[in-house]
């Protein structure tokens, strides 16, 4: 049969010669290779101190955006939860009371908004689905934790300007 590529290598299985059968030259050359690797530059990145730069379009932790006046944009429409393939997002809607106009942009807002970061696959579909530009994926990611419950991010952790632990890797341009 005609070979499709030139990369194919025909394996010859003939009896080994005496020199090959005493293994020692092969062992010596192999040990030379490993010794060379011994002195090579290490590929490891010492994580918390050093970090691999991430691109600007990196999809990391979510953030709930606010508008120019600092009002929450989210209207708890639930499109993000529907779009989420991992079913990581839950929310509860509430009606805006009079006097809360400086907090919420529209009459309906999310009283509870939770993302389970252990379920989330960081696909960014929620960002695509949101009609109000309320949810974005940042370039940061969540630090390790001892407790699974701590990976359920509540609304006060997700809102823009909220205090939350996150790791900020350097950005590439």
């Amino acid at each position, binding site marked *: 049969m005609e070979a499709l590529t030139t990369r194919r290598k025909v394996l010859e299985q003939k009896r080994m010669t005496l020199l090959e059968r005493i293994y*020692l030259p092969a*062992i010596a050359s*192999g*040990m030379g*290779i*490993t*010794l060379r*690797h*011994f002195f*090579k*530059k*290490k*590929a*490891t990145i*010492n994580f918390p101190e050093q970090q691999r730069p991430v691109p600007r379009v990196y999809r990391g932790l979510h953030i709930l955006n606010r508008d120019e006046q600092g009002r929450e944009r989210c209207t708890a429409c639930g499109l993000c939860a529907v779009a989420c393939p991992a079913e990581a997002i839950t929310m509860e809607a509430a009606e805006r009371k009079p006097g809360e106009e400086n907090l919420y942009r529209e009459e309906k807002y999310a009283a509870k908004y939770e993302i389970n970061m252990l379920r989330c696959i960081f696909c960014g579909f929620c960002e695509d689905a949101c009609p109000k530009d309320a949810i974005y994926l940042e370039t940061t990611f969540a630090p390790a934790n001892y407790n699974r419950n701590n990976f359920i991010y509540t609304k006060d952790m997700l809102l823009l300007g909220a205090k939350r632990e996150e790791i900020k890797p350097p950005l590439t341009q």
Partner: protein
Amino acid sequence: MVTLAQVLPAIILIVVIFALTMLVALYSTFAERKVAAFIQDRVGPNRAGPGGIFQPLADGVKFFMKEEVIPVLSNKFLFILGPSIAITASLMTGVVVPWGPDITLFGKTYPLQIVDIEIGILYVFAVVSVGIYGIMIGGWASNNKFSLMGAIRASSQVISYELSMGLAIIALIMVTGTLSLREIVEQQHGWHWNILYQPVGFILFLVCAFAEANRTPFDLPECETELVGGYHTEYSSMKLGFYLFAEYINMFISSAIMSTLYFGGYNYPGMDAVNEFVGPVIGPLIGFAVLFAKTCFFIFFFMWVRWTIPRFRYDQLMNLGWKGLIPLGILNLIATGAAVLYFK
């Protein structure tokens, strides 16, 4: 009768050497991980202490804190006896190694060797052969097929390779004319290292040492891909630690014996001049440091080989032992005998 003053130096030496052996074994685990990492372009453990220097302590603490599991259907007494024998036997080997030349302290001369017995090499052989029982008993008492297979593999491998190791050593003894390790070292004074007279014997001995210490490429008794964990599959906590420790102690002692038999032990070129210069206290310590450096090189060599060469298959192992090394050993024996006769 024997007084305390007479035994005290020996007791101190025993304690020092045991402590040293344990320490080297402890740090061999660390070195193994570092060497593996470096060969694989990683940096290895570096979190506990500066450069990860306390990693072995952390490992040790973890071993002690782990839950102890003894299988219900195992033979409890033998299950505990197995690792104990393994570690005792490997610790006992270091007794006959001459760690340095005689040292003079406070006007008295003390040997840096626990006992100098006339048949030092045979003693090492005897202790090693007792060490197999640790593995066999542990493997059998676990009541687990993988453990049993590992134990049987270990013992058949050790017995097979003991033969060719014996042949290599007999050829060496023909050259040296003595079985005492101290005399063998004394004969290699200066540059007369036995490696120059017994290169084939050394290679034989080296290969067999790998097999005896159950190190890759001959680590079939504990190969994970076939036997889960081999003879220590059922072990946990410090009993597992004992088995692993015994392996590293074996590696240390066989490295020390290899340096003693073939690489001049504590001898180094220009030793006499240095000794005259530094006096009878520092001189022996330098000798000890030289032996220790040689030993460390061999320990590194063991690890280097482990991360280079893949594991042998079981039939390849037996073929190599019985059809390769033993005939080679016999040929080496005949050649050495002829040479000894010719040059005498």
